[in-house]
């Protein structure tokens, strides 16, 4: 999709973000400012904006293009009048998730959490929720890469307390 800024007469200011592995990404200012972590970097320091490189210590460059793609599209959806049909937004969101493995989804949630970017975080956590709904405890442990740290007695007790939640689960 063409950048929404390409035809505008005024030059859109760009901000450089540096991923954890050192790779640089040039990002239009309004897109970068969707991320609270980037925004707070400049608070009280607005003049310095132009030349600053914002280090993002916890975000791997692997996921940056997808994250930026999400925000470029969603900020364009928000600006458009009349607003885009719900199907168009849904189609974009579904395509966005389509090829993401569970592990990639987890990593992107970590990134969105670090970037403190609510819209993406909600979108990704809801996607993760949809993947674990009605699944067994063992499936969810594998999904999140989480070790069972209960003692057998503790686990038995908690399972017994929540017995009603275990009927008729989907197959793993």
């Amino acid at each position, binding site marked *: 999709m063409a950048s929404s800024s390409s035809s505008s007469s005024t030059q859109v200011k760009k901000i450089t973000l540096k991923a954890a592995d050192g790779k640089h990404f040039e990002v239009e200012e309004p897109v970068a400012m969707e991320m609270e972590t980037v925004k707070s970097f400049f608070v009280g320091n607005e003049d310095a904006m132009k030349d600053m490189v914002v280090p993002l210590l916890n975000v791997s460059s692997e996921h940056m293009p997808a994250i930026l793609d999400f925000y470029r599209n969603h900020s364009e959806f928000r600006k458009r009048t009349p607003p885009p049909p719900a199907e168009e937004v849904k189609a974009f969101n579904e395509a966005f998730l389509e090829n993401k493995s569970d592990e990639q989804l987890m990593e992107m949630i970590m990134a969105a959490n670090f970037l403190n970017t609510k819209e993406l975080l909600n979108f990704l956590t809801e996607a993760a929720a949809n993947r674990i709904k009605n699944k067994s405890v063992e499936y969810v442990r594998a999904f999140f890469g989480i070790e069972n740290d209960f003692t057998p007695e503790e686990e038995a007790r908690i*399972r017994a307390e929540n017995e009603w*939640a275990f009927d008729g689960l989907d197959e793993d």
Partner: protein
Amino acid sequence: MSGVLTLPEGCIAVVISFTTPRDACRLACVSTIFKSAADSDIVWDRFLPSDYLSAISDYVSSPTSSLLSKKELYLRACNNPLLINEGKLSFWLDKLSGKKCYMISAKELMIFWVDIPQYWKWISLPEARFPAVARLKVVCWFEIVGKINISLLSPVTTYVAYLVFKSTHDFYGFDNNQVEATVGLAGCNGQNRTVYFHPNQQGIVPGDEHGLFPKTRRDGWLESELGEFFYGDTDEEGILSMTILEIRSGNWKKGLVIQGIEIRPKNR
């Protein structure tokens, strides 16, 4: 997946809040961090409808409800129905889904001839949720209508309506008569079906796949399924109307106690 990558508890809580109450209870068994997230108020706040919280503050003036965790409050909302609207409506949450459920008391139903003492009688039963239930002495014209504003329902939910009743020792006249039930928005053509009040289905029609025969509830009352209604969007407005009618046979009918009409989400 590498063990290094673990989501912070706050993120796990947000993920769980997008599941269902039943999922959240199961996810508490994953690990200690999941248990802490799955029991947190962030999660259960989302499962408690705001009108339940306002109903609880209007009708329950006990300070203990503010001391409970949101999960405890949720479980209380499922297990202990509240009486609202001057005691004419019973209100609780479906444990599996957190969706709103209601029972309209007999006093709030339109029951044909209910105020004529030779036909119907108001009695009170210890096992009823409401102070008064309607005892059918004898009628030919058997008609009950229940109405509820659909704005009270949870959106994007298929609801099923049930007549909640008991049959008494003098139960008579319904045996071979089909009762007609209609469920739908008032002013529209509703969904029609036939129901039986006969508690013993043996020898009438084999099987009960369509919910035509009454089932015994956990509280000891019987319920007959009247029909379904899908409530989609909160933009929709209207009154859901449920009608139960048996006037075709012209028979005398007797021996029922009506507690109310219950509306709860259809579970798979």
